[in-house]
């Protein structure tokens, strides 16, 4: 078909009949319509961030860069940025390590592993708000079952999400509970698509498990891990549901990441235009990071496929 070089010759587009030439547009059209329709809110958001739009006021007017300047000179913004980065990085790291580890453990095909493979997808299916609820009930100091278990080893009244020092840990535990399955699935997919011959050769040569992992498994799994990393990091940076359901950003401002700050300022306080710059910065951060990771992943994937 088009686009590829046939026998190392350039394709002369003029020689291809029009109805085939235009085919790509026809094919992409429905998808594009849907997607364009969604581009509009992005542009609107950028536009509104330069106004003082608020539902309270009957008319809005341009205020130039005021919202932006206010944001960059506020303590709130830098704190939110710090929380966003910390939560994003730690949650993703935890999920990647745990997920990859478990996937490797599931590599060996036994009856046990086959059952577990299916069961391990279940936490992903629970809505985050419900997951928070279950964990709140289990960790409650007064009525929680986990509390009773901890009591057995002499730990009483562990504050979980109620204390400044353990709130982020708690949120990350719940995030990891829901989302590690995603990483497991992706890494498992990678493991199962690995070619057998290099491993057989290595076994014959008497390579140790660690050596095999370091030089064979890990490099070949990288493309898959990158995808998992990409999706999880991007999601964790903008995590809203879990944190809002857990403490609404508290205690104090401990868990107020950019998404939450934007939501509370924009929806709860109805100060929409001043909340938009926060969210636009988040979007920019995510976009740039994603672009970088995607480039790396495509590069690695092409490398691994020998292109």
């Amino acid at each position: 078909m088009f686009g590829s070089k046939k026998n190392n010759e350039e394709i002369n587009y003029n020689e291809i009949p029009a109805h085939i030439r235009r085919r790509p547009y026809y094919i992409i059209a429905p998808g594009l319509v849907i997607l364009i329709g969604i581009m509009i809110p992005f542009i609107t958001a950028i536009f509104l961030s330069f106004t003082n739009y608020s539902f309270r006021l009957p008319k809005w007017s341009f205020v130039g860069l005021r919202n932006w300047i206010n944001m960059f000179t506020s303590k709130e913004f830098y704190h939110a940025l710090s929380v966003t980065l910390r939560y994003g990085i730690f949650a993703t790291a935890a999920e990647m390590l745990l997920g990859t580890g478990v996937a490797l453990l599931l590599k060996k095909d036994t009856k046990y592993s086959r059952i577990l493979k299916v069961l391990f997808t279940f936490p992903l299916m629970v809505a985050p708000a419900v997951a928070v609820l279950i964990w709140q009930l289990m960790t409650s100091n007064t009525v929680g079952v986990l509390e009773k278990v901890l009591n057995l080893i002499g730990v009483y009244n562990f504050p979980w999400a109620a204390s400044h020092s353990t709130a982020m840990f708690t949120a990350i535990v719940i995030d990891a509970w829901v989302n590690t399955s995603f990483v497991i699935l992706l890494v498992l997919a990678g493991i199962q698509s690995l070619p057998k011959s290099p491993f057989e050769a290595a076994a014959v040569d008497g390579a140790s498990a660690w050596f095999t992992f370091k030089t064979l498994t890990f490099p070949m799994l990288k493309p898959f891990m990158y995808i998992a990393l990409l999706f999880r990091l991007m999601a964790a940076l903008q995590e809203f549901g879990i944190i809002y359901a857990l403490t609404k950003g508290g205690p104090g401002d401990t868990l107020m990441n950019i998404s939450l700050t934007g939501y509370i300022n924009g929806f709860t306080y109805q100060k929409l235009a001043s909340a938009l710059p926060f969210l636009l910065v988040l979007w920019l951060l995510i976009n740039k990071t994603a672009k970088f990771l995607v480039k790396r992943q495509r590069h690695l994937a092409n490398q691994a496929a020998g292109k």
Partner: protein
Amino acid sequence: MNQHKQKGIMRILEPVGRNLGLTLFAMFALFPLIWMVICAFKSDAQMYNTVFRFTPTLENFRAVLIGSDYFRAFFQNLLVAGGAVIVTVIAGVPCAYALARYNFRKKEDVAFQILSFKFAPEIMVILPIFLIFQKIGIYDTYLGLIWVYQLITMPLLIWVVRGYFEDISVEVEQAAQLDGYTWYEVFFKTLIPLIKPGLVASALLAFIFAWNSFTFPLILSGSKIQTITITALRYIASDTVHYGQVAVASTIAVLPEVIVALFIQKHLVRGLSFGAVKG
């Protein structure tokens, strides 16, 4: 001699270690779910002072399934999430094909833009979308929600399926065409079966994301459409917190996803391999 012994020990320790690790993780991953199902059968009075020994009751089920409009929310959620996935598949697969096959400048950029929709902060887009939906009259409609859900369902599907298409060599299509099939027949008879694992796995993930979405339905649906994530939280409290009812609502809410997953479990893992690395 020592090496031999070492290998022998390793051979015994390895499965033990592996199964121990798996079991530990299984406890972490599965206990809360088991707990949720147990709570569904516990009465409010016994909810907190009993662990495993209690008198099971169906009162929570009655209150949720018969005493409230749970099923209405359930079917609405099914319509919206299912509809969103169907639209995604119909519009997304051709998109993925075009991105795989046709070369145009900025192709990677377009592909990336599509992917970036998944990462867009929901909070940022939700208000402009709300305003626009109100203006054009699709607020609180199935059409509106299904359209918005494309933000979360399309990107992953296009990416996974594109990977699969890229992996099918052009020669396969050309050979089929030489055999006299039209392009459309080639597409449906030859190509689709080859991308089935990827399509099916990413469709399931898309369904899960759509099914569990909270912020979009909260703001973009009024009274005509109530999705299940919000409905499940309703049982929390009006007079006191009814964890048992929440447990029932959540357990049943998980069922469609579980059923679909069980159906396609064969394809699930293989499907996400993107065909990235081959033999």
